[in-house]
């Protein structure tokens, strides 16, 4: 593989990793607080749809983003009520949210835009465009390292930079602040938190809010930054991959980033390897390459991290009365 190819793979890696990372961190907050969330997928899809819908109609990307955040947030709240207040089964809540998202987005899209659930392509100003970092052009001239800056680091939409900024922030919040301390405690031993005089469910709701917002960013990225407009079920299972990444990272911020970069890289690779003759094996069937990310995920989960024990109180609604 030549250098330019590698460059373009790396750039694609960042683009693919971004929604994963945002969703993964989203999951980190609620799961560290003891609320399992299979519904990342659904929240992203809702966000993607409403972001695109509003951006398409108003032609204003910021309004679009706002709508996306709102949609994801309110979905998260529904999930929160089910999982925290009503003490329902958290996994079911997630599954239901995902199904609802697929159905409702297409349904609304169809009845609003009559394009089979798609939104129209976004007009000028409806979409977050790539940002050129300073001197990208100039530095780009430098052989080898230049392209790394100009084509890999530079030239992404704001979401990409936000996602990676969110990692140190999350680590800081999680390990250095009162909120983080209580968050981790509530996911490990809510009773201890309760006896320390802290409201357990309130803490969990706070976590779920953060989750909602991050999922909102992730979803909006799909439809008003990376793409231009919403396509049915356009998150295509990325929420589940993000979940895998979270488990893979043992629910920790920096590891989460690396996991997402890895999965993003696998996707980028998948795309570059299609139709390329492999060194030894020669032409590989395209399906084998398309399945590659999933196969490798399985292998990694099985091979490297072994038993991943999540937050102890994960998935269990908190009740005083036993």
């Amino acid at each position, binding site marked *: 593989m030549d250098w330019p*190819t590698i460059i373009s793979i790396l750039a694609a890696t960042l683009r693919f990793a971004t929604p994963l990372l945002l969703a993964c961190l989203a999951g980190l907050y609620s799961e560290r607080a003891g609320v399992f969330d299979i519904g990342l997928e659904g929240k992203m899809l809702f966000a993607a749809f409403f972001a695109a819908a509003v951006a398409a109609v108003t032609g204003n990307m910021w309004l679009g983003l706002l709508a996306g955040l709102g949609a994801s947030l309110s979905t998260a709240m529904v999930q929160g009520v089910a999982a925290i207040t009503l003490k329902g089964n958290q996994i079911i809540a997630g599954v239901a949210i995902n199904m609802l998202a697929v159905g409702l987005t297409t349904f609304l899209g169809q009845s609003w835009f009559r394009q089979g659930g798609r939104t129209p392509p976004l007009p000028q100003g409806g979409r977050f465009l790539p940002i050129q970092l300073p001197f990208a052009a100039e530095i780009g001239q430098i052989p080898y390292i230049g392209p790394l800056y100009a084509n890999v680091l530079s030239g992404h939409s704001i979401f990409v930079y936000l996602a990676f900024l969110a990692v140190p922030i999350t680590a800081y919040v999680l390990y250095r602040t009162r909120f983080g301390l209580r968050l981790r405690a509530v996911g490990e031993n809510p009773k201890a938190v309760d006896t320390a005089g802290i409201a357990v469910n309130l803490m969990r709701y706070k976590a779920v809010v953060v989750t909602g917002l991050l999922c909102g960013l992730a979803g909006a990225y799909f439809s008003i930054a990376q*793409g231009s*407009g919403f396509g049915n079920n*356009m998150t295509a299972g990325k929420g589940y991959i993000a979940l895998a990444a979270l488990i893979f990272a043992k629910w920790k911020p920096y590891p989460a980033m690396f996991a997402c970069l890895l999965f993003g890289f696998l996707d980028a690779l998948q795309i570059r390897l299609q139709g390329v003759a492999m060194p030894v094996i020669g032409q590989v069937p395209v399906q084998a390459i398309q399945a590659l990310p999933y196969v490798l995920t399985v292998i990694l989960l099985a091979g490297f991290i072994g038993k991943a024990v999540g937050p102890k109180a994960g998935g269990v609604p908190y009740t005083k009365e036993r």
Partner: protein
Amino acid sequence: DPGLIYDLGGKFDKSFNEAAYNGAERWKAATGGNYLDFEITDGAQREQALRRMVSQGANPIVVMSFNWGSVLPVLADEYPDVKFVVIDSVVEKPNVRSVVFDEHTGSFLVGALAALKSETGKYGFVGGMDVPLIHKFYCGYAQGVKAVRADAEVYENYTGTTPDAWNNPTVAGELAKAAYDRGAEVVFAAAGGSGLGVIQAAQDNNKFAIGVDSNQNHIAPGFVLTSMEKRVDVAVETAFTDGPDLETGLQVLGLAENGVGYSVDDNNRSLLTDEMIAQVEDYKAKIIAGEITVHNYETDSQCPL
């Protein structure tokens, strides 16, 4: 009145089914007549939907896609006095008209046009799913490219393996971008809804895409080199116009019948020089005249290049 049954993917798939819908709508506008239509959501509904149409007295009934192989023959026998039209597949029954298109020749022309437009010798193709029909597109396209540049390279890509593949602009876009990064300047999308991602990518990277099925030049004027039109709309419209006593049998719509072709309108005219068009028209004539034979993947599931 006539009836129309869309296939999986739905009325508004921005390509195949939507073309049929446009045809029906045009007929409606022209004649002021009415028609029944239905979107199936899973295979089990085919027979059900078709019988429903019959029982509601629809005639003729147009069904889309190659998935009717097992259902249609049976029902055709059951209802000898109803006329059926199946598009994209061949059913030999006295009361069935089978309409198939020479996607390969149409694709050949856009391939040639791509090769004439771009000198890089690298060309992209993004298919929805790795299925025979899409291979037919690819194979014709590649032949067209190579007719102009024998040494050219064509990157063959597919969006996915689940039904999402026809609706995943994100991945399709990335596939196109990959092709552009590898030096291609033109990417032909035969991927239903995913194709929009390719066109978007062309716009973002200031390169060219080639649309499919219906004329997609307008989606991003100046970035869609042309569209490989497959006039499903025409097929549907004529079927509706012919009415209950349409003559049945096999109908192959090729270049001669304008069943397939490349679209030129003021959205893309500026991208094409007269020489290019002349050159392509020449190929077209030769193919019609039989001086050039474009291999059809479907005949032997092979693509000799």
